[in-house]
């Protein structure tokens, strides 16, 4: 838990949450990254790199919301583990679907 009083506050419990200023900075970053995503989308020269660029940008947005707005950076680790477990199970489902399609679907894979 950080002790940076400029960016975090302590409430009734012993969990420190970001200040409104930090929330506002995160909101600005999220808006800018969304604008960059839109810009990248319209650049023909970047078409071949579109998927990796957008994957990195959206993962960054996802991480910012989860860490700061959902307070996983500051909260009990069990919450982070639950989210990661859900994501791992979702990817496991994807692998199961891929296997299913590979062997039995008339359309084949992607």
């Amino acid at each position, binding site marked *: 838990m950080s002790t940076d009083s400029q960016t975090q506050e302590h*409430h*009734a*419990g*012993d*969990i420190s*949450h*970001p*200040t*409104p200023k930090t*929330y*506002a900075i*995160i*909101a600005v970053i*999220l*808006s800018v990254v*969304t604008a960059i*995503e*839109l810009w990248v*989308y319209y650049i023909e020269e970047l*078409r071949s790199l*579109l*998927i990796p660029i*957008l*994957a990195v*940008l*959206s993962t960054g*947005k*996802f991480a910012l*919301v*989860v860490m700061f*707005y*959902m307070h996983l950076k500051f*909260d*009990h680790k*069990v*919450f982070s583990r*639950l*989210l990661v*477990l*859900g*994501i791992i*199970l*979702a*990817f496991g*489902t*994807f692998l199961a*679907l*891929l296997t299913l*399609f590979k062997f039995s679907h008339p*359309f084949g*894979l*992607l």
Partner: protein
Amino acid sequence: MSEASHEGGHHTSLGVDSRKLGMWIFLASECLLFGTLIFTFLLYRNKGIEEPNIPAEILDIPVTTASTFVLLMSSFSIVLALHAIQTGKIKSFQRWILTTAIGGIVFLGFQTYEFTEFVQGGLGLSTNVFGSSFFMLTGTHGFHVAIGVIWLLALYFSSLRGGLKVDGALKVDTMALYWHFVDIIWIVIFTVVYLFAVV
């Protein structure tokens, strides 16, 4: 230990409030639901498509970017609502929770507009597998947003009647987790469904 512990919350052996833990378990299970819908869309997105329903041509990226921005800003407004109730500023809380609800309603308005455009253009739930997987994914997300808006308005009206005096911060914290989850799911959908459409 969360703030709720000082408001008479029920604790688990982990030292966290059981209601907050329950919400996180629910959200983890929701990862499975949306993961399945997103991956199903990925598998079907280029299947059975015929003119004039080419995804890259019918998806309205500027409109969806605007709705994405609205949803992201509603995540910002709900953390401000949470901060307000944690610091005892009930008027500020009411203003921000209502702003968040309006953001959710605006997002649903954008989605209704998009769905109407698609249906009028000949793309429905049963037109092809792309349509089925697209409407199932975005429709399920929209349903979650609608539930969230009802929940937000319930909190707003509850606060007007003084109903958030006990466990108020925990109730808002739990709701905020749900709302942020809806937001992060949309971050993935916006990228995978809309921006990947040209690839």
